[in-house]
């Protein structure tokens, strides 16, 4: 039987209550949202805390997907509350219209029952290098809003991820929101190779592509999961694609950069060589699909 070591269960119903309690309890406490990463880790005794603070009641406050227009009707941004559950991300038509990568990814994250519980904030804070939403957020150049007692700060995904299972969120802080800039003439896509339905990725890749008015690549971002200690983006791909006409040759070049830039390890999910092959092939596929979507050839 797998059970966590003893801890004291606490429940909070507002963000202020959460940070106040965290401030008092320090690193002996941990927040639990959906719990589908943290509770299994506690059951395996990989981690334990004296206090577990249940923030599921914050869903009322932090469960949302809000679209904000920019000044003068220009594209603005989408703000997603940290307690928004996978199922809500999957089912949001508004989100799928702005960023189809979310629906692509959510379809293959865990399974429908787990998606009823797991949250965006919990996924990011778990900071597992194989976790899909981190790759999605990296691809979309998201920023994370972190709330403490003295106010909030906003960090980029690169700053947020400090290493496997480590984030920029301090002991007395909570991730409250993730923000995504919306830019014109762009689209996105995600692909994952897994051994069986609902599994962790062997390798996943996300791409976001934005075109200029003449159809050249204005910006492109690729985020990979499960090929190294971090779900980092690959800046070299953006550099290689900017200003170019999107073609199969260009996607192939980006795939080569992805394969060279990642650092997969051989494990039960596959050899490093196979994962490198996947990084190349999936990068090509997601760039191709993102461009097809951006130019209206595919939904």
């Amino acid at each position: 039987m797998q059970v966590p070591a003893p801890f004291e269960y606490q429940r909070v119903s507002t963000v202020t209550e959460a940070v106040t309690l965290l401030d008092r309890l320090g690193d002996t406490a941990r927040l639990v949202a959906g719990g589908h990463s943290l509770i299994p880790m506690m059951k395996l005794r990989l981690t334990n805390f004296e206090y577990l603070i249940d923030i599921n009641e914050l869903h009322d406050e932090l469960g949302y997907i809000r679209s904000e227009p920019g000044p003068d009707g220009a594209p603005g941004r989408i703000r997603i509350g940290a307690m928004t559950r996978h199922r809500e991300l999957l089912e949001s038509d508004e989100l799928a219209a702005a960023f189809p990568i979310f629906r692509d990814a959510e379809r293959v994250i865990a399974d429908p029952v787990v998606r009823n519980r797991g949250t965006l904030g919990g996924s990011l804070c778990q900071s597992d290098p194989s976790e899909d939403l981190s790759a999605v957020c990296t691809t979309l150049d998201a920023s994370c809003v972190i709330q403490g007692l003295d106010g909030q700060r906003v960090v980029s995904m690169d700053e947020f991820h400090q290493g496997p299972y480590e984030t920029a969120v301090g002991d007395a802080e909570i991730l409250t929101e993730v923000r995504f800039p919306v830019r014109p003439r762009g689209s996105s896509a995600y692909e994952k190779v897994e051994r069986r339905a609902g599994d962790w990725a062997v390798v996943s890749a996300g791409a976001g592509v934005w075109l200029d008015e003449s159809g050249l690549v204005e910006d492109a971002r690729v985020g990979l999961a499960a090929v190294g200690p971090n779900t980092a983006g690959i800046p070299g791909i953006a550099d290689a694609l900017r200003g170019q006409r999107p073609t199969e040759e260009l996607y192939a070049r980006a795939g080569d950069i992805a394969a060279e830039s990642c650092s997969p390890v051989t494990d039960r999910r596959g050899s490093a060589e196979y994962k490198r092959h996947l990084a190349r092939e999936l990068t090509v596929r997601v760039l191709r699909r993102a461009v097809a979507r951006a130019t209206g050839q595919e939904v």
Partner: protein
Amino acid sequence: MQVTMTVNGEEVTREIEGRLLLVHFLRDHLQLTGTHWGCDTSNCGTCVVRLDGEPVKSCTVLAAMAGGHEVRTVEGLEQNGELDPVQRGFIECHGLQCGFCTPGMMMTARALLDSDPDPSDEEIREAISGQICRCTGYATIVRSIRWAAAEEAGTRTTAPDTEAPAAEQPAGEEPVATTTGSAS
């Protein structure tokens, strides 16, 4: 700590440890052993119960987290001595062999039909994709859920185990939803 929740419509209060998992609370504290305890790693889905209407894996939810909420287990499917159409579907279409995965499969099926009274085979397969039948009886499980859907829509006209009820639905007739509860 003390926890109070509603289980199958009845309010229950128990003294528990914070680390107690919902599956063990149901089985060991309430003796509701219909909810099975399988892989312990949120993979197999035999422990699925409904928490405020939504199917969840009760091996990965703390009992304390369910405090103040509504839980429904497989024992709550039967109403007034009448088996739920999902339960009858599993009987009619041989939806179980060893029966170990059955409680979780039926709870997910009930939630699916409450939100979508006429799911396609593909939608049924997607809904149960987080659950494992080690007898590999998936085809009959899908058929059982379809049987229940047809039964509730009043469109089941032939014996089970033959053809898809969807194909038997008379043209132009809309299936009638007769669902209870909600999957929010």
